[in-house]
């Protein structure tokens, strides 16, 4: 019956030869799925609907300004505020933002900078025109109102 005698053996060592594969697979997985940090919105941003839209041409020349009611109403109140990059600002700080954005561009492209206004539908024109006024002061003449495509009724 020696045939059926179980050999005495300990648990075999786990093969670690595939460990690098697993590690690399994880590494690549996270590399692929990670997105570079996008600006986190601190204000409500429901864009208006419009039908006659024009595409923005060069995304690298576009800077975004967000306007809307703050999400954290306990901290910032309910009045619409302006957000650039990650901070809430007052209209007076807009020119500085524009100059900083212009500095990022090549000298030849600086005049072509486009400011894209992403304004919440519930915001009032008062704050929007304040921003426009400041943009004019900072010599950013190309302004775009961001909106989403509406389905035409006609």
């Amino acid at each position, binding site marked *: 019956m020696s045939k059926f005698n179980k050999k005495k053996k300990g648990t075999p060592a786990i093969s670690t030869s595939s460990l690098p594969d697993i590690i690399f697979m994880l590494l690549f997985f996270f590399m692929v799925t990670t997105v570079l940090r996008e600006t986190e919105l601190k204000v409500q941003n429901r864009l*208006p609907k419009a039908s*006659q839209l024009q595409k923005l041409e060069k995304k690298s020349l576009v800077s975004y300004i967000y306007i809307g009611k703050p999400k954290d109403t306990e901290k910032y109140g309910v009045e619409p505020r302006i957000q650039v990059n990650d901070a809430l600002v007052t209209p007076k700080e807009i020119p500085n933002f524009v100059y900083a954005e212009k500095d990022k561009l090549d000298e030849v492209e600086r005049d072509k900078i486009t400011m894209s206004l992403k304004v919440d539908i519930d915001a*009032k*024109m008062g704050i929007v025109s304040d921003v426009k006024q400041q943009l004019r002061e900072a010599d950013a003449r190309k302004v775009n109102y961001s*909106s989403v495509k509406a389905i035409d009724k006609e």
Partner: protein
Amino acid sequence: MSVNQVKEAAKKFISNNGRDPKSSESPQAAVISLKTDRGTKYEVYIAVMDELKKAYNELRAAYMGITLAEYLEIENDSKKQNAKFEEAKKAIPYQLSEAEPTNVGGN
């Protein structure tokens, strides 16, 4: 006037060509002034702007003898030079003047 009447009024004004002495003389000379109040809702402002743009686009499309959808396609295709489109742009220039907002409605 409600928002969806803006388009027809604008089209009538732009393409008046001197027929009505109180209206525009020619599309090239027609300027539309858009005045807002500080209390105007942004949504309404964009709706009006959209209607005005549509008025111009429809007139240009009619000038070029194409549909509005075809016109929008040409307008968004910046790579291709289109002589007809440039001509339409010259014949019916988009002239919108925005006046300083009044302060009736408050912030």
